[in-house]
């Protein structure tokens, strides 16, 4: 299933990130060139595709690996958008899949960033190596997100993500998408981002079945990620569950805010537009 239809893509391409302009105080205005990597500071490698400028091929890498990679450089003042997906197994849940909603959110932000000639770094918690995108990487970003799987087990090691904050922290915006069911590593990321001066936005995705389950009768509840519970579910049990979930989510909200990040709650069944609106409210996106 494609992440977006053509109409949504068109609407997304009209948007720009507001964070960069704010950070740069509007002195530079729009970037002069969409050519990512024309600056002085090395940013990242990416595989060569047909049409790329052969002058930017990193021949040293070719000599070592035998494959063509382009050498990308970041321009000074260019905004770096860090897209981090929580690929915990609990993300693959719900009639309206939370994982699909998470990838759509990241894709939307990534596209908007790329359309604004910003530098985009995509990472997921279970994979330590991030992937960089410049202004021409929109198609590749969408393809990568489209094919991105969840991991088999929740990830506690977030060193790969935190490593992205060590360089150019103040030029970066972190967009973290998760269901926050394993919240401690995620809150750690957000706290590290704040220390590194990275603006952070946490998007919490929940499925309707999680917030308001319709279970009843004798049930053996097999939690994704482990743990069996036997219960005869009736309205009293459901009420207790809803109270517990609400309490938990309120705790998440407080903790995210305490970590200095904006917090957006998203239903996995929601279309992408409300998220865009919320991102606008958070000052991440401008029209």
């Amino acid at each position, binding site marked *: 299933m494609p992440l977006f239809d053509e109409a949504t893509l068109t609407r997304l391409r009209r948007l720009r990130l507001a964070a960069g302009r704010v950070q740069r105080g509007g002195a530079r205005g729009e970037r002069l060139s969409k050519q990512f990597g024309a600056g002085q500071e090395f940013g990242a490698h990416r595989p060569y595709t047909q049409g790329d400028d052969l002058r930017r091929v990193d021949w040293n890498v070719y000599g070592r690996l035998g494959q063509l990679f382009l050498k990308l450089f970041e321009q000074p003042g260019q905004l770096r958008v860090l897209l981090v997906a929580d690929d915990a197994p*609990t993300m693959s*849940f719900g009639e309206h899949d939370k994982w699909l909603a998470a990838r759509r959110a990241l894709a939307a932000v990534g596209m908007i960033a790329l359309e604004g000639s910003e530098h985009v770094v995509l990472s997921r918690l279970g994979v330590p190596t991030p992937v960089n995108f410049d202004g021409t990487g929109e198609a590749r970003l969408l393809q990568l997100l489209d094919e991105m799987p969840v991991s088999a087990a929740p990830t506690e090691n977030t060193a790969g993500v935190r490593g992205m904050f060590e360089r150019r922290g103040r030029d970066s915006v972190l967009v973290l998408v998760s*269901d926050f*069911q394993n919240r401690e590593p995620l809150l750690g990321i957000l706290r590290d981002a704040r220390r590194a001066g990275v603006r952070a936005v946490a998007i919490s995705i929940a*499925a309707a*079945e*999680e917030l308001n*389950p319709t*279970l009843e*009768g*004798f*049930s*053996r*509840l*097999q*939690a*994704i*990620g*482990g*743990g069996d*519970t*036997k*219960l005869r579910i009736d309205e*009293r*049990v459901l009420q*207790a*569950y809803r109270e*517990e*979930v609400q309490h*938990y989510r309120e705790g998440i909200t407080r903790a995210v805010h305490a970590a200095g990040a904006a917090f957006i709650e998203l239903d996995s069944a929601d279309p992408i537009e409300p998220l865009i609106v919320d991102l606008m409210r958070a000052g991440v996106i401008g029209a």
Partner: protein
Amino acid sequence: MLEFAREQWLWLFALVGVFYVAWWFARRYRKRRVTYGLIWQRVAKRVLPPGWKRVLRTVLTLLVSGLMLSSIALKAAGLQRPESERPPPLLVFVLVDNSPSMRALENKLTRAQLAQQRAQEIVDKLGDLDRAALVWRQNGQLLVGPWLKHGDSLGPPPPVDWAAHSGATDLGRVAAPPGLPSEPARLCIELTDSDTPEDVGVRLLRESVGTSQKNDGIKRATYEPPANDGTSGSLLVESYFGGEIEATSLPLMSAIPVSQEPDMLNTWRVRLPIQPEPLEIWVRVAASDPLPEDDSIVVRLDPPRLATVTLCYPAEDGEPNDQLEKALSLLLPGREIIAQPVSGDTIVRADLLVCDRALPAQYEARFLMCFGVLPVEYGRVGSPVPAEPNMQLRVEQPEDLGFEVPDLTLLYGREAVPLEEGHSLVPLAKHMQGGTLVGVKRGSPEVLYVGFIPHLSSLLLQDDWSGVLLLSRWLDAIQSGPRNKLPLFVQAGEQAEFELERSGTLQIQLSDTSLWAQSCGPREYAVTSGPDGRGELGPFTIPGEYVVKHPVREIGRLTAFAPYDPDLTVPNLPRLDLNGLFHKGTEPDWRDRLPGALLWIALGLMILEWLLWLVGVTE
């Protein structure tokens, strides 16, 4: 060790297993994939009671359900002790004596009713597998009623059987009711007032009903025709013990004099009065006794009904003809002859109106004897003529006259008054010139015309009896009533003669109002007379009053007597212990109590479960 009466319901025990399987399926936990595993675990801790409470509740629920279902299954399948431990079923023949003496009253209830009550007690004492049948006699033969079980209701007592016992009956050969688990034992309980045991072919236990009592009653009754004593005859009634006899005329309930016969033991004479209407006399023993059925009879007869006689004579005579008055007294003994001079406006009312040359202006009479005068509606009298002996014409006697006409040719008179032509009487004697000197009309009213004036003729002279004979035969004829001669009383077991006017067939039916109507035996007979109208009827099985019809019209009634033992003795037999007979060895044991006990235990556990929930031990 365990047996079941209704094994077709044993499958109900499978319900217990089905219940547990269904319970297990209903309680099966279905796998659900969820997130927030830790939250669900917290919820479980919050809402679930401790494990031991859940186990307690589950165990109680399973016990209650299992016990209730088991109890129902046990009840439906009929848990019982094994065949070898149970006594065989008992077939009880309750032989109820229905002889006539069982109609005797014992303190407002008859012996038959007491026996029926006792029979009902026997049926109520039967065990579940025991059966009883009422046995009684009908026409002398033992009759076995339908099989009864505990709780069945008996109907009214069987009808009285008057027939003599005929032979023995083997109740051991009576087929047992179907469905009994084993060959039943047989027992006969006889409820009787007789001291003679029955031979019934099975073990016989006897119990007496009632107490010995004396019973008076009418033993015999005979009718004596009137003997010129001014009555309609007499009833001679004999009672067993000479108890006083009373008699009442129905329907007015007027007492009739009764006197004891001096020369006949225990016999009373009821003098039947002469009255215009047919007699219906209720004769009974005055003192009440245990058997009222044989204490009274009702006599219906049609004796001579000529009670009042008025002799009318011309007022100018000054007094009636003495000879005629004496003749009437002789011919109608016991009646008062009222002499009535006739003037212009004389009104007379009598049974017999005798008109000696004088006819009252108005009269009301059923019989008219006219000398020289005749009411104009029957004809006119002519002028007097002299009549010499042997000068009268001989007249052939008409048929159906009802009496034999004497030879009247010797009658003579200085003046005889013949009837003119055109009269409506049947001539019995004619003058040589053709006028009717003696004529008669049968029917209502009866009319006799005699043209010979008593004091001017030889009519009442003794040298020729033909005149007096004519009057006598006519009076007998008009008082003879029905010409069929039926006996008023017969001995039930004997035959009695009767005579009909013509040959024919009598229908004899037991009256519905007879006190012995509820009896076995034929209630209706057809008796054909011989060509001369004579025949015999009886014997009758059921005593009582019978209605005689010929062919369909009631022509009379008769009463059949049954000679009966006046001593209603009852043998002193001990009262049977029914509990010992039917309930020995059938006390319930644990197998009889198990279904109920399981239900009680289940109920107790339900209450315990409820109490535990109430105090918060379980949820």
